[in-house]
């Protein structure tokens, strides 16, 4: 068996995660992995991110213990995202990493919530989520087996400091068999077919390889030089173009990322152990840079600093992620504006999909075609989800939010919306990043109610339903109260650093 040589170009988090995943999956006699670090700031998220619960599976596959990881990346536990005044003023909703209610008589829980809503119920939907209840009470813990067997779940993700996270990934990759070369790209050596033969660095060094990963951030310096590359802009689909990132002090609780609306776009925050990332994403048509800066500073509660400038962002994705023998990962592959805190997830999902399709016989058009197809599908559904967030955010109908209802939607999203509106069912799609329950709770938690309940509920015993739902809420809040205090559990993890 011949050993292939894979070359990663980039020095940001996407590069280090790719390197760590590849060196973890393959022994050096199968694949030699080289990373060329240009040593400049990569245009990609670099302060903080949270990812999903899948993040933890990724770490487990790399045999990184959670304690080690949390200690080294200033991490906090994440139970969900808090939508503050998102769909209407005064309404807060926690989109938690746990079930919302449980099935009754074989019918999805949310159908009962719809039914009671139609009867005038004003109970917050997140009263039915253990994760949301725990987050609201600043509690965290791990459910024991008994509870899990009874159908309770409390999943979580982590908020991590991305520069520390990169460092950890680097350590892991180098410990395996990563070779690191420092140097900046001067130009590419392409063969007659347009495949990359080698990276020629400004130092004159030539780094040859069989396959290349473009992890250079939104500059996408490798892939954009390849024949047939195209970037599809989402200027209509995700109409924002600026972002301001600020770092403030530690937040009161680290269990939720926060999202709220503002005139020009949206505000979000990611709480780490020792600091918080505050971010304002906006459309400069609706908000001037100065006004946005003032809003961001007020939001973060920090001093004005000349060092911070609005960044230009270009939402969109590559038409093909895998072009010739080069694969774009992370911001080089696409930019979703991070409305849903999913950067690490996309990086990991990209490299894991590559591994799934990579063959010892090398790569060819079938693999590329399959990769591009699956990733396009995945990205389309992710875009749908982001758009749904924007559609639901109707708190301010002025400024940016006056345009959100006119955003062009895919047929799939339209189908989801109509079917849900009509009868509270979620249309099935094959390649979803968010599970059906996640869509449903996002919709209901943000006041998107179906017009009808499930007809199977006709004639149900309303008294019993009310009792059962009351019990669910009570059990959730009792269970949440029994969990440990967030500070206490974080403290335990800190000691083990």
């Amino acid at each position, binding site marked *: 068996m011949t050993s292939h040589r894979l070359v990663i170009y980039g020095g940001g988090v996407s590069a280090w995660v790719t390197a760590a995943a590849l060196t973890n999956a393959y022994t050096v006699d199968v694949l030699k992995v080289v990373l060329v670090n240009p040593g400049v700031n990569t245009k990609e998220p670099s302060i903080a991110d949270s990812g999903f619960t899948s993040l933890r599976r990724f770490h487990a596959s790399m045999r990184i213990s959670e304690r080690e990881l949390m200690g080294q990346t200033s991490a906090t536990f994440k139970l969900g995202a808090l939508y503050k005044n998102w769909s209407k003023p005064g309404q807060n909703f926690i989109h938690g990493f746990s079930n919302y209610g449980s099935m009754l008589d074989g019918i999805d829980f949310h159908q009962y919530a719809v039914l009671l809503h*139609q*009867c*005038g119920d004003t*109970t917050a939907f997140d009263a039915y989520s253990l994760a949301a209840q725990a987050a609201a009470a600043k509690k965290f813990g791990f459910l024991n087996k008994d509870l899990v067997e009874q159908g309770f779940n409390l999943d979580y993700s982590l908020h991590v400091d991305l520069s520390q996270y990169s460092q950890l990934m680097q350590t892991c990759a180098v410990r395996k068999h990563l070779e690191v070369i420092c140097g900046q790209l001067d130009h590419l050596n392409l063969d007659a077919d347009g495949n990359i033969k080698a990276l020629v660095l400004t130092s004159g060094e030539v780094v040859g390889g069989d396959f290349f990963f473009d992890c250079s951030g939104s500059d996408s310096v490798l892939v954009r030089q390849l024949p047939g590359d195209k970037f599809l802009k989402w200027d209509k689909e995700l109409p924002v173009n600026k972002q301001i990132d600020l770092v403030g002090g530690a937040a009161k609780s680290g269990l939720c990322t926060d999202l709220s609306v503002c005139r020009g776009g949206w505000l979000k925050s990611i709480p780490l152990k020792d600091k918080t990332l505050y971010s304002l994403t906006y459309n400069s048509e609706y908000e001037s840079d100065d006004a946005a800066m003032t809003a961001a500073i007020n939001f973060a509660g920090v001093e004005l600093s000349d060092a911070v400038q609005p960044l230009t962002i270009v939402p969109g994705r590559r038409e093909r992620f895998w072009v010739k023998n080069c694969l774009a990962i992370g911001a080089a592959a696409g930019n979703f504006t991070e409305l849903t805190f999913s950067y690490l997830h996309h990086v990991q999902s990209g490299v894991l999909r590559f591994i799934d399709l990579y063959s010892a016989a090398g790569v060819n058009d079938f693999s590329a075609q399959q990769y591009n197809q699956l990733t396009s599908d995945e990205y389309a559904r992710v875009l749908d989800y982001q758009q749904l967030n924007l559609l639901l955010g109707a708190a301010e109908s002025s400024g940016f939010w006056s345009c959100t209802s006119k955003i062009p939607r895919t047929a799939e999203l339209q189908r989801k919306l109509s079917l849900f509106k009509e009868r509270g069912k979620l249309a099935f799609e094959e390649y979803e990043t968010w599970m059906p329950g996640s869509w449903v709770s996002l919709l209901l938690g943000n006041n998107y109610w179906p017009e009808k309940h499930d007809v199977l509920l006709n004639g149900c015993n*309303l008294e019993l339903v*009310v009792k059962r739902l009351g019990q669910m809420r009570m059990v959730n809040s009792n269970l949440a109260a029994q969990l440990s205090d967030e500070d206490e559990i974080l403290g335990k993890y800190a000691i083990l650093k």
Partner: protein
Amino acid sequence: MDIMSDNKIKKIVIAGGGTAGWMTAAALSKVLGCTNYDVHLVESEEIGTIGVGEATIPHIQKFNQILEIDENEFMKKTQATFKLGIEFINWKKIGQSYIHPFGSYGEDINAFPFHQYWLKLKSSGLASSLESYSIATMAARHKKFTRPLNINGSPLSDFGYAFQFDAGRYAQFLRGYAEARGVVRTEGKISSVELCENSGYIKSLSLVGGAVIEGDFFIDCTGIRALLIEGALKTGFEDWSHWLPCNSAVAAPCEKIEEPIPYTRATAHTAGWQWRIPLQHRTGNGHVYASQYMSDDEATGVLLKNLDGAVIADPRVIRFKTGRRVKFWNKNCVAIGLSSGFLEPLESTSIHLIQTAISKLINLFPSRRFMEDGAELYNKNTVFEYERIRDFLILHYKATERTDSDFWNYCRSMEIPEYLREKIKLYVSTGRIYRENEELFSTPSWLAVFEGQGIQAEEYHPAVDSMPLAELAERFKAYEQVINKCIDFMPTHTRYIADNCKAE
């Protein structure tokens, strides 16, 4: 021995069984306790009770709770059905109907009463009928029922209910309850009441056959006869029949209707009105009338013509005089039930008046030393209760467009008490309904009768204009839809009874 126990009343004697007697006995045995007090009840099986099938108002739930009576158990034992309100037919004019529900209309908006907004919307032609916004009314109209449910913000959590039950069985049920807690019942007819010469207090009751029952404190539950409070103590009676001229009733139960409806019906006739109270095993009926406008035979004829099923007992005529005792607590005697006064059962207030009497008596329960110290307060409060109910009843007769009989012509044009006059005036000119203190009937009740009997507000509260009309219309529409949905999901009254409290 300390002073307290020495002065303590030791023996309480209740004269008369029936609903009033046994409710009193049951409550005293539970709250005062029969280890503390000897509670005796004297009744005679020979004397029938008026109890013809009683309709109640939601306050009775409180009574059940204090006595820790299981509601379903009590309903099974008394053939009870649920009650969401009273339907009044032919009161404003013939052919017209409205329901006085146990529950509110709509929900307050910005701390302002719903009906103010409704008045505005109605004047713009955008409102539905008042009853579309009352879940109790809509449920009653659809023969649906559920107990209120704990759903935040839902109309399903916001209505009241009461019961319609067989009063005879209710007395029996309470007798079992009271006797189990130590109340001593003596069978016998009271032949005379002995007073203490000095104090004028009642000393004892003598029964036919010679038995004498002595006591420290006496409760007169002897019904219209008022043997103690009037017969012995000569307390005096205030006559209200110029305002409420009905003075007779003829009652007869008939076979049950297939699906008992969850409300009482009061249908106006030419010289009075007829009640219909559907129970699980039969329907109670009665015709209340003014004998100066209609003969007993004619009244009986009207009753029998207007039954849903075959009559199952001979019609029985009852005479009464509307009014109240001058004092309800006189010396060492309190009158509870019909002995205290009579108000026709148009708004199902009889049992409620018994209940409040018991509760006041327990609160103000005297000692031997200060036997009459609570009497003044007791009497003052009871007068208030009586008069406010009286005025509400008068409204039903006064607010009519009927011109088809002398009876209605009299009612329409009669003078009414000042309080009522002012209340009507305030509503007509401002749409406001003022509730005095703890007056039994609150805003929705007055609103239901005002609107149901043609008294219309000419203005509404100006603060209401702060909400744009379109938004208001939208909110009302949504509320109406929510109510419809709630009704959809309520089980039928029959089904609910079958699932919860079907009599064996």
